[in-house]
């Protein structure tokens, strides 16, 4: 496929910053629905797809420990991108789907990518019973809602099959699930299930490994989440040993960075912290795929007494997908200890 054509196709997809900023995301929503602060999320309907919005994702990451004692991380992501705000049968459907799967070890990073058209049954998401799929990659509910899931994906040289059991309630990010992304009021609908217990098997070129660990699911949809001056983001999902969790991000903006965070107590209750409460600072930059990418960070959240270093398990966790970005597991040291996931786009 012509690289330009592909690039523009994918620009419509979320989660990918380009050097020119989120060009595709910064434009006005043409006929697409716009996130509404008054909207209250309702489940299970909102587990499913929202074709009237331009972009949407089902984003699952998990930090895992193998029976061999090694640390692993996996990513399973399904992106939906709409060329027009409706769904249609057959090839005429304007809904495009893309999925990324990754498996990270301390010294290897496996990546696979799949693409599909909507309308023909090759990819899609249904709310009840919950099923998100593209080709043979699936995130499938084994109980009502998304309390229990089975998850699978495979690439040329790796695969995984995991089961997930939620240990807490859903967390609505921002204001009741309305997450502001810039001072101009760009926003998305955003909720998470940050507390999955994960068990299952990873298959690597050397053979299968039994693993256990923690999973985090993010659900987000919008038509225009970013401002035109924002060039990329650094996004953290952290689970601490005390049972607290934190979601935080920094949107890099020529008009000054924008940070936001949600603090989640061990009982699952969430508190949205005001803009600027979280400060993030890159400490170490690694050469990854020919560019400098920060792979060690200092995070400070004085309101919660948090001051930690976040270090990549494998600095080379580069996603060599149609649109490249960095995504991988991290370890946390400092005032709090734990594990988490880091995503960085736009480098």
């Amino acid at each position, binding site marked *: 496929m012509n690289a330009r*054509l592909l690039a523009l196709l994918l620009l419509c997809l979320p989660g990918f910053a380009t050097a020119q900023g989120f060009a595709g995301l910064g434009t006005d929503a043409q006929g697409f629905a716009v996130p509404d602060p008054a909207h209250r999320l309702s489940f299970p309907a909102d587990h499913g797809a929202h074709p009237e919005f331009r972009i949407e994702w089902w984003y699952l990451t998990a930090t895992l420990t193998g029976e061999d004692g090694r640390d692993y991380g996996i990513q399973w992501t399904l992106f939906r991108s709409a060329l027009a705000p409706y769904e249609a049968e057959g090839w005429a459907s304007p809904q495009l789907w893309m999925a990324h799967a990754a498996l990270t070890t301390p010294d290897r990073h496996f990546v696979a990518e799949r693409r599909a058209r909507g309308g023909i049954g090759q990819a899609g998401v249904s709310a009840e019973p919950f099923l998100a799929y593209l080709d043979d990659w699936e995130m499938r509910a084994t109980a009502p809602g998304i309390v229990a899931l089975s998850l699978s994906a495979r690439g040329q040289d790796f695969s995984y099959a995991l089961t997930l059991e939620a240990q807490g309630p859903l967390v609505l990010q921002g204001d009741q699930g309305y997450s502001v992304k810039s001072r101009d009021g760009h926003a998305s609908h955003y909720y998470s299930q940050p507390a999955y217990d994960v068990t299952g098997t990873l298959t690597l070129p050397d053979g299968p490994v039994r693993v256990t660990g923690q999973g985090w699911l993010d659900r987000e949809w919008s038509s225009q989440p970013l401002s035109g001056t924002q060039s990329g983001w650094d996004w953290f999902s952290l689970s601490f040993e005390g049972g607290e969790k934190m979601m935080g991000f920094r949107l890099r903006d020529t008009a000054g960075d924008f940070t936001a965070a949600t603090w989640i107590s061990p009982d699952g209750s969430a508190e949205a912290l005001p803009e600027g409460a979280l400060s993030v600072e890159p400490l170490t930059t690694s050469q990854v795929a020919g560019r400098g990418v920060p792979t060690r960070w200092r995070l400070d959240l004085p309101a919660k007494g948090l001051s930690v270093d976040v270090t990549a398990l494998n600095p080379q966790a580069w996603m060599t997908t149609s649109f490249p970005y960095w995504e991988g597991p991290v370890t946390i040291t400092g005032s709090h200890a734990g594990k988490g996931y880091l995503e960085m786009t736009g480098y």
Partner: protein
Amino acid sequence: MIAAALGALLSHWRRQPGQFATLVLGLALATALWSAVQAINAEARASYARAAAQLGGDAGLVLKARSGAIPLATYVALRRAGWQVSPVLEGRTRIGQTSLRILGVDGLTYPVMPASETTDATDPAAILLPPGRLFVTPATAEALANAPDLPPRITTPDLPEGVALTDIGTAERLLARTGEITRLLVLPDQPAGLPPLSQLAPDLELSETGQGDVARLTDSFHLNLTAFGLLSFAVGLFIVHGTAGLAFEQRRAMFRTLRALGLPARTLTLLVLGELLALALLSGLLGLVLGYFVAAVLLPDVAATLRGLYGAPVEGGLTLRPAWVASGLGMAVGGALLAGVQGVVKVARMPILAAPGLLAWSGAARRGRWRMALAGPALMLGGVLALWQVGGLLGGFMLLGGLMLGAALLLPPLLAGLLALGGRCATGVTGQWLLADLRAQLPGLTLALMALLLALATNVGVGTMVSSFRLTFTGWLDQRLTSELYIYAESDRQGAALEDWLRPRTEAVLPIRYAEAELAGAPGRIYGIVDHATYRDNWPIIAAAPGGWDRVADSTGVLVNEQLARREGLWPGTTLTLGPGWQAEVVGVYSDYGNPNAQAIVAMPALLAHVPNVPNRQFGIRIAPEKAPTLAAELRAAFDLPETSVVDNAAVKAASLAIFEKTFVVTAALNVLTLGVAGFAILTSLLTLWTMRLPHVAPVWAMGMTRKALARIEILRSLALAGLTALLALPLGLVLAKVLLDVINVTAFGWQLPMYLFPLDWLRLLALALLAGALAAALPATRLRRLPPADLLKVFAHER
């Protein structure tokens, strides 16, 4: 000191511009021929790759339905099982007077899309959502200019004419074939542990896109070209070795002086080596320029050959590719080092006080004659041993190399022997002197004559092979393509309709139906035939059991192609397993040129009984030949068939022959070039011997022979040597042809060709060799004829 030494070394070339030119031109010519062949090969391969990438995707495999279209649900089911496949919907639609081939692909999974010249190509919504866009060439866009019902066009140079590439959704609407898929491309990267296709989609069959076949067929052509390039290079190296050796010998005194003046042996060796490298680079660059022109002249013919003969798309244009530039320069430098290393070693080991021998070079050659006489047969024996021990294509080439080099080494002792024999028989003073003089000059001419021998033998060998191939192939075409028309339907349904339509209008409709099968462990095809005189009378059988055709007709016998018979030893009387519980006795073997795979022929009822859903889309039509063109036109009109679906036998044969003539043009051009290089070698050898010859000629002149007579003898001498070499080259060339036909061809392509002899070609070649010899001697002879007598007298005055 180094600068002075370098100046002294290089002064030799200033004083001997002829020798300098010889060395540079020899190496340049060799490099030119080699890189021209490389350029042609590289260009052709790049063209195949481009074509494959544009239309089939890089994927080598496709899935097709055994009959009809693939349902969309099957595609989704394969995808949901993990198979990485990409759908293609292909069909024709009529736009006014033009027929447009629509190629619908899913842009998200299709491996390649053409680059576009216009920018709106990059709006995915425009391409994927109705009305969609059509990618076409500018010329096709022109032809579609007045088609209001079509989606907007986007022009791109990367497509064939008459094809519109578009989104599969747009193709569905244009062709009115909703939910249908023509084929599925199997993408190269598949995850591990997929469920088998036979279980997921039993109605689909896996086949190659056809690019593989083209590659295999064209491989034979490229193999021939490469062999040619290598032989020309070897011929060139003989020249370089000769001239470089002579230059070293002539500078022996200078080397000694330089060493005596205090230049370390190491420095001198490095200087000589550096000089050689510089010369090699200079000649290599010159050769590349020459090679580029040779390739540019030959490429259109090669392209036409490949396009016509194998349907391989090769463009006529030439681009400079790093690969063959590097290969050309590498060969030039490597070749020069190979040819000159003997001299460098001599310089390094030269004792400082060794007396300079004036005729040391030729003397050394004479001493080496016995070594050559022993080494020649040893090399030949080595070649035979290699074929026996190593086997295969490599063994075949080693045999070729051994035979050629061995024969070249045997040439000097053989020529010397012949001349000695002639000297004994010769009567008369002049005759005896002529023969003695020839023998004396032989060492200096050895390398040039070896080059001539190789060039001539290659000419005979390759010429015989190509001509034999042509004769056999055209004869085979006559036997095999007996039907007057061949029809290709797009579906089984259309096939059935065609058959009904054709039956009352023709003498016979012969269905050509086959199934892909595993024959003796390798992929192959089983054809079913109806019992018809067409087959019995014409099929090119090379081995048969009595009543073979009757045995095929009653389903107890099977015919196999030569490739299968040779590979598995399946000759008449043996039994072949065609499938589970299906065996038949081999009752005949037929020749099947151009097909790399196994093939078997059974009776149609037997095939249909054992294999379900055999496609019925190809037919041979028997009809009075003069009625064929009319029927073809009617057929195309009645069924709206594309041009390629109805093939006129006469047109196929004419095209095949025309293509062979093209092949000949290329072969002949390369032949003339190789001969030219050899002729040049003789000329340069004669010129370098010139100064050494005067002392031999002067006494004869003094005894009363005129300069005119001497000049005539000079030419006669060259003619005699060239003629003798040509005579010796003939058997070598025939052996070469035999090896090419019986060893190389059989191992590379699986079929043996009968060898035909073409004595007229030999006569032509003998004439060419004599011409080359005469031309090469013309310059020295003219010089001799015009030589002032004073120069001849000086010979007696000078201290020798």
